[in-house]
């Protein structure tokens, strides 16, 4: 086994023993997604989305809309906390791996590989729980947007972990997805196009795709997915740079 594979496989074992993360993975999807479906009143609500390239309002059941919103909130929240924990632990200890002979790219590949694996599991569990109560109109587009927003939040968690301590970082990563996806991007709250500053949040582009492909039969937001991917890449470059600075000296 080479260094990257060793660090990756041991990193996965280490995260599997992170009981807080495992508990979040078991408890949050059920309590957020399943309960949202269970308690939401089944009434039709006007929902803003794109139809034939134009912003339009369609009538959809409130539980469906809640499902479309609560699923990415759950996934983004867990992925963000996972990214935060990874960075906090890495800041303290990964520098010693560099002294032991690991190249920077080997540790980066292993750590970001672990985050990617966690994000895949989190997304899978969140979507799986959602599918019990709700089937998106275009499942694979929906899952792709879910992955993009989850990875983006995982990387933001790493960025936050580089500048804030564990407690402050946890508070921020608990609040940020709630405000972003649960308030600013929720078409039930924001009936018209969001203000410019709400569009700067990581959930804007992917949630547009999820609302469109979750609730309508046509794909009008392919370009939004491209922008969401661009946002992800930008955050990834920042996270890699900050990780490198946090763990390497010479």
């Amino acid at each position: 086994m080479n260094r990257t594979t060793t660090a990756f496989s041991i990193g996965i074992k280490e995260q599997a023993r992170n009981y807080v993360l495992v508990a979040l993975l078991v408890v949050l999807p059920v309590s957020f997604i399943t309960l949202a479906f269970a308690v939401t009143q089944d009434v039709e609500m006007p929902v803003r989305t794109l139809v034939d390239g134009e912003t339009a309002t369609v009538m959809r059941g409130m539980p469906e809309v809640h499902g479309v919103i609560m699923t990415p909130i759950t996934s983004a929240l867990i992925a963000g906390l996972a990214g935060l924990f990874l960075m906090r632990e890495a800041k303290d200890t990964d520098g010693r791996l560099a002294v032991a002979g690991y190249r920077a790219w080997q540790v980066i590949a292993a750590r970001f590989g672990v985050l990617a694996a966690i994000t895949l599991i989190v997304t899978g569990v969140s979507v799986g729980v959602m599918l019990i109560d709700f089937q998106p109109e275009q499942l694979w587009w929906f899952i792709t947007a879910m992955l993009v927003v989850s990875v983006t939040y995982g990387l933001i968690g790493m960025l936050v972990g580089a500048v804030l301590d564990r407690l402050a970082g946890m508070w921020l990563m608990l609040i940020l997805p709630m405000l972003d996806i649960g308030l600013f991007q929720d078409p039930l709250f924001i009936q018209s196009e969001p203000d410019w500053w709400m569009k700067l949040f990581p959930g804007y582009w992917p949630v547009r795709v999820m609302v469109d492909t979750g609730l309508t039969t046509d794909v009008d937001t392919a370009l939004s997915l491209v922008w969401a991917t661009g946002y992800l890449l930008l955050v990834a470059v920042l996270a890699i740079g900050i990780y490198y600075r946090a763990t390497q000296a010479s």
Partner: protein
Amino acid sequence: MEAPTTSTTEATTSEVLVRADEIEKTYGSNLPFTRSVPVLTGANLEIRAGEIVGIVGGNGSGKSTLMNILVGVLKQDSGAVERTGTVGWCPQEPLLYDRLTVTETFRLFGSGYGMTAEEIDEAKRRFASKLDFEQYLDYRIDQLSGGNRQKINLSIALMHDPDVLMLDEPYTGFDWETYLIFWDLADELAADGTAVVMISHLIEEQSRLDRIYEVRDGHVYDVTERESETEATTGERRRKADE
């Protein structure tokens, strides 16, 4: 201020293995109305093969800062560090992954040192036997006592037989027996040509050191003659080890 430089080459004979030249380091803050703290303002030192070198100094004098720069985990603001050969580093706080077992910890760091699975296993058994933690190999790091954690911390620094061993108060938490074993180990390593550098607070240890550097006022002073009344030279240590 000159740009800092660091270089690492392979050790050959008993020559200078670590050389620090005019090292400067100031801890600053990007926040307004906060002050920066100059720690090192032109530190020079040399570490030679086969020496046991102590770095002493008051609290906050910059001992750990100096060692972190020598190891390469902290970047100096200016000055140059030259390292020759492989380095083993035992930080003051055990920098280990809490949720890994002792065996997994050896595998992770051994892989970094470029050791084969057999070499890692052999080193693990050797140090587990010598430092008496054989029964804990399958324990997670966060399930170990402070003393046992420190034994793993030290073993990880030693497992690849480094040319230079940097130890930041390595015996914290050791019982008396382990403390003595540690010094026997340090003597054996020095006799084999390893340069052992350690931050030390205990005055009674200073007779065991070949050279003593004191970090004071941002500079490094060689205080060997002043501090060491019964000097054990490298040659004497080698003769003892041979006996």
